């Protein structure tokens, strides 16, 4: 158990360092920008006839620092604000705190990503077992090929193809936003049905995106387990194929938890493209919109939160792995 806590602490430590590096990076990015957005805002307030002190205070609220202080002091005040969970004030969502804007967007990223993850895990792992057992037949080969192909295709290609086929060409599924805008949000039948039908395409894209990874990892894992002595022994003892399959699956599934962290990172990173295509109001969409609107506080916040999500996914994968495989704990 000691080894586990130590490894988790190391993970947590590197994760915190990463978040710190990303925060520092965005801070200096805002400073390195030509015509520093903080200064530009300050000038704009002055031309609107505001007193220099009030203008400075307003800029400080938005960015967490003013460029009239020495750089180090700006940096420390920005970091201090960040530690208190204050990411500044959004510019494009007039006056709303960045934290609030992000909190509204976060569920719309988490919900499709996690649903897609569960779907792709179930389908991909099953297909991986089949591809491993039937690896010398034509169907097994085709199944592995589908895995490598889907794993290689860029996310937006999948998203655009799905959107085009199911929305434009066959007109089966709706597209854009989270639900029909005419419906009243709440716990009622039509609204929930609309949310689900609008989520089908993004979820399918996320699922396809990580399907290949699960399939290939599960296939190679099953192939290596199939060669183990205990499988031969269970075969000789006349244990039914179904039970033997259960033995194989339980042992083969262990190395897959490294894929979990990888595909979660992949999905959160890909959310920028996927949410933009489906016009889904999640974190990635927020990041892109903030760049279009030159809303730097929001941009920094969204980028930071995507990083935090990936770091957390990594820690979670490590934790799950050691809970499931007792050998790691020692």
């Amino acid at each position, binding site marked *: 158990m000691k080894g586990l806590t130590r490894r988790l602490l190391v993970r947590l430590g590197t994760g915190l360092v990463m978040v710190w590096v990303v925060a520092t990076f965005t801070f200096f990015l805002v400073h390195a920008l030509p015509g520093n957005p903080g200064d530009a805002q300050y000038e704009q307030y002055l031309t609107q006839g505001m007193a220099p002190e009030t203008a400075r205070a307003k800029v400080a609220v938005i960015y967490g620092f003013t460029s009239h202080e020495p750089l180090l002091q700006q940096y420390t005040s920005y970091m201090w604000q960040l530690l208190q969970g204050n990411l500044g004030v959004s510019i494009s969502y007039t006056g709303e705190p960045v934290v609030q804007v992000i909190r509204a967007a976060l569920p719309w990223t988490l919900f499709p990503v996690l649903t897609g993850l569960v779907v792709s895990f179930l389908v991909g792992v099953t297909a991986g077992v089949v591809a491993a057992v039937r690896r010398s037949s034509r169907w097994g080969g085709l199944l592995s090929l589908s895995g490598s192909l889907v794993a290689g295709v860029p996310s937006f290609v999948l998203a655009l193809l799905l959107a085009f086929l199911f929305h434009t060409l066959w007109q089966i599924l709706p597209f854009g936003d989270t639900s029909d805008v005419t419906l009243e949000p709440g716990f009622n039948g039509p609204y929930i049905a609309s949310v689900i039908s609008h989520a089908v395409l993004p979820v399918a894209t996320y699922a396809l995106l990580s399907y290949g990874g699960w399939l290939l990892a599960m296939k190679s894992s099953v192939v290596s387990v199939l060669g183990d002595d205990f499988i031969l022994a269970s075969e000789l003892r006349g244990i039914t194929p179904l039970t033997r399959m259960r033995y194989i699956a339980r042992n083969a599934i262990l190395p897959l938890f490294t894929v979990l962290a990888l595909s979660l990172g992949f999905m959160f990173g890909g959310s920028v493209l996927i949410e933009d295509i489906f016009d889904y109001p999640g974190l990635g969409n927020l990041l892109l919109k903030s760049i279009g609107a030159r809303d*730097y506080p929001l941009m920094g916040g969204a980028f930071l939160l995507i990083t935090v999500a990936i770091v957390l996914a990594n820690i979670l994968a490590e934790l799950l792995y050691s809970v499931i495989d007792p050998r790691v704990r020692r």
Partner: protein
Amino acid sequence: MTAPTLGAATAAVPPRRRSTSWTAARRVVLRKPGRVIGLGILVFFALMAILGPYLYPGQLAVDPESIYAPPSGAHWLGTDFAGSDVLQEIVVGARYVLLTASLSALFTAVVGTGVGLVAGYHRGLADSVLMRATDFILTIPAFPLLIVLSTVWSFANPLEMSLVLGLTGWGGVARAVRSQTLSLRERGFLEAARGLGLPTRHIIVKELLPNIAPYVAMQLLLSVIGFIGAEVGLFFLGVVPFSSSNWGVMLNQAVFAGGAMNSPEALGYLLAPLVCILLLTLGVVLFLDAVDELFNPRLRERS
């Protein structure tokens, strides 16, 4: 008088060795039809990238008379929002896409191999420092990072684009090379080299590198598709300024300006770049199978 004959004698040896490895490669590729198709697709796109701009010199022709025309004899893939030929745009745009992706892959291979070799061979402090850096590169959300970077740096020209892509993508290669190096360094021939007191540089460059090259080559092929996806994605989102027409710019205009998602008229315009990327992915995946067998003799014997 002796110099020319000596030169001829040494020159005569390498071609024969090369020819045997070439026949082996040909045999492996020809064994399965899928591999031939994969190689064919890759060669086709490589030729498109090299010859494309010569095939259609000059500017894109704009024809306001035929906007969003369906595929026909004159325009095989139809026309776009300005009446330009889609096929011409695809062929001309291939060079930027493939050149950038190949340069990024090359950059990734150099940095990743260097880091992986040093980390795996020296172990100890160098290893832990380099691997921390590799973990960092692997976990940082690369695509969002690229978008954020685009606010301060408009890296649209091929060299800068491939530099940025390469910098965010060398983690996987470094990790694979390191694990290969770790297992190779305990083998007999490396122990012998160390026992002979050969300099570390010689061991790494002459003994280790040739054994690792196949893995790097495979990683390289795989990373090319990833880089194509990333750069076309950046253009598609419109965060990088359009310097020339390429597949990403085409997609951007088809989806956001042409309203391809609501009108099936833009079908050829939208599908052409998508199908090109799909075909390239298929080509790489199919051909990788052959590369895998070529470099893994155990696979060759079994099948």
